[in-house]
């Protein structure tokens, strides 16, 4: 996997294709693991209704996830998503290419999902941001995306920054991320809606607290505008 990408825009919901060109699934969610040094590393693609349903929104998603789990109560493992280890991902283009064939590929983690260091991208997106006034961030900012960059030492990638801004429609359209002329009316509207969006580098001054459901950003954080 090469190059940097924004996980919600470029990876989530994309088609996964196996080494024989057969369609496997969609990227229903992405698993991020918090390293010992506090770094945030994408470790797996999460697949299946247990990964997809929670992304339907906080209330609707909860109801759907619970209903799905109850429906398949007798089956062990039906309430946890299947995983595809990130090492199996060869390339991310308009589809996600795997280096292995699809047969028997999808299965949940043997040890279950419950590990405090593993968080879902879907849970991180939309978290409210508690920012100090000195950061210049909009007071109703939320996490809109995470920027993933390759680590210089090789194939690994790591989350390098958060994209935060008031949660308005159109973030998935990508106009806020690039300056190419879209149909100008749509592009300008989306850019205007996201004019308060900023890129916040992970590091000192940024604290992601998934259990408490917020991201705290202090004045020490490095904040940059989203477009160029």
């Amino acid at each position, binding site marked *: 996997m090469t190059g940097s990408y924004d996980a919600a825009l*470029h990876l989530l919901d994309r088609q996964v294709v196996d080494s024989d060109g057969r*369609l496997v699934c969609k990227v229903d969610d992405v698993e991020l693991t918090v390293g010992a040094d506090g770094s945030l590393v994408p470790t797996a693609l999460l697949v299946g209704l247990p990964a997809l349903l929670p992304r*339907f929104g906080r209330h609707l998603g909860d109801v759907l996830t619970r209903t799905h789990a109850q429906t398949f109560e007798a089956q062990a493992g039906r309430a946890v998503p299947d995983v595809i280890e990130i090492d199996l991902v060869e390339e991310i283009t308009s589809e996600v290419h795997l280096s292995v064939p699809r047969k028997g590929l999808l299965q949940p983690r043997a040890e279950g999902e419950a590990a405090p260091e593993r968080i879902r991208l879907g849970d991180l997106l939309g978290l409210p941001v508690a920012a100090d006034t000195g950061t210049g961030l909009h007071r109703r900012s939320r996490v809109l995306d995470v920027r993933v960059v390759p680590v210089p030492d090789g194939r690994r990638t790591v989350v390098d920054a958060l994209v935060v801004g008031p949660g308005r429609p159109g973030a*998935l359209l*990508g106009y806020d991320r690039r300056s190419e002329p879209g*149909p100008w009316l749509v592009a300008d509207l989306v850019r205007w809606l996201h004019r308060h969006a900023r890129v916040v580098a992970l590091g000192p001054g940024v604290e992601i607290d998934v259990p408490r459901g917020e991201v705290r950003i202090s004045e020490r954080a490095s904040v940059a505008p989203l477009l160029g």
Partner: protein
Amino acid sequence: MKRYLNVLLGVLTAIGGFVDIGDLVTNAQVGARFGLSLVWVVVLGVVGICVFAEMSGRIAAVSGRATFDLVRERLGPRMGFLNLVGSMLVTLLTFIAEIGGVALALQLVSSVNHVLLVPFVAAAVWIVLWRAKFSAIENVLGLLGLTLIGFAVALWQLGPDWGELASTLSPAEKPAAESWATYAFFGVALFGAAMTPYEVFFFSSGGVEERWTRKDIGVMRANVFIGFPLGGLLSVAIAGCATVVLMPQGIAVETLGQVGLPVAVALGKVGLAVVVLGFFAATFGAACETGLSTGYSLAQYFGFQWGKYVRPRDAAGFHVILLVMTVLAAGVLLTGVDPIMVTEISVVFSAVALPLTYFPILVVANDPDYLGEHCNGRFANLLGVGYLMVITVAAVAAIPLIVITSMGQG
């Protein structure tokens, strides 16, 4: 030489495959009630479907992504799901109408009640979807659909006063007995019939099925920009025939037989036989297209293997959906519901579902991540945004118009 033959075949099947039950019924109804005063809507709709089919075809050729992939990637899982439900309902309604249309066409030939024919038609559609090659479905039924040119021949044979006919093209020529609300209702219905969402699902997924690459963009454009407008001319010919024969007699179109009546008047039994074959081919072809489209949209939302380019056992889930949908459609028709009524409902609700499908196509057609150098130019964007506005107006107006005019009765 082979290349030119391929282009020709593509264009011919695009013409023959353009008309479906929605176009047949709506154009004849409108012709019989409003003359040619709504032809401008057909032109608007045909240009619109060209604009968006070209974009979706280009995306499919360059990135291999079909329309519903884009819908989920760009609208997210929740809005995408809402769109999936809406589009599936409309496409299923259209599928029901097409199977009913095939049964009605066979009823014209056999005089056997169409309800009795439905199980056989549904079984035939499913066997074709399961066993036949994608290109065979498209080419055979598309070429047979060309027999609908009988409507153009009939119009010419009827020999109307062309000058007088052309003078009725203006919206101001709306018959005084019809209200502007019904005029608007049928305008929206015609627009929905011309721009039915399944057409882009099918067109873009078909591009992936046929493994289009960048090299095929030229051929794809020829199909769209030559084939679709000529197919649209067939729609206008149907409306024209109804205007010349049915309107002066005050005949309202309620059956498929009445759609073909002007051809019988102009060309006799042989002419009628030819266009009935056209009815059969057009509705059977569209039944296959809409059936496949239900499978395409579901599979593309959830990401499992779809398509006829792999063996059925490699896309088992996709083929199970096709079977379930066919059984469901047959079940609805076996209740004895009038396929013509289902058609009327399906075209109006098509109009409601349009923006959710076409907006993501327009956005991705501008995204260099997908299209590289093949992104939309200014002209395509101008048309795209313009149409997005028209589509939104039609979608918003559709339901109030249904209520106000009681489905065009008023």
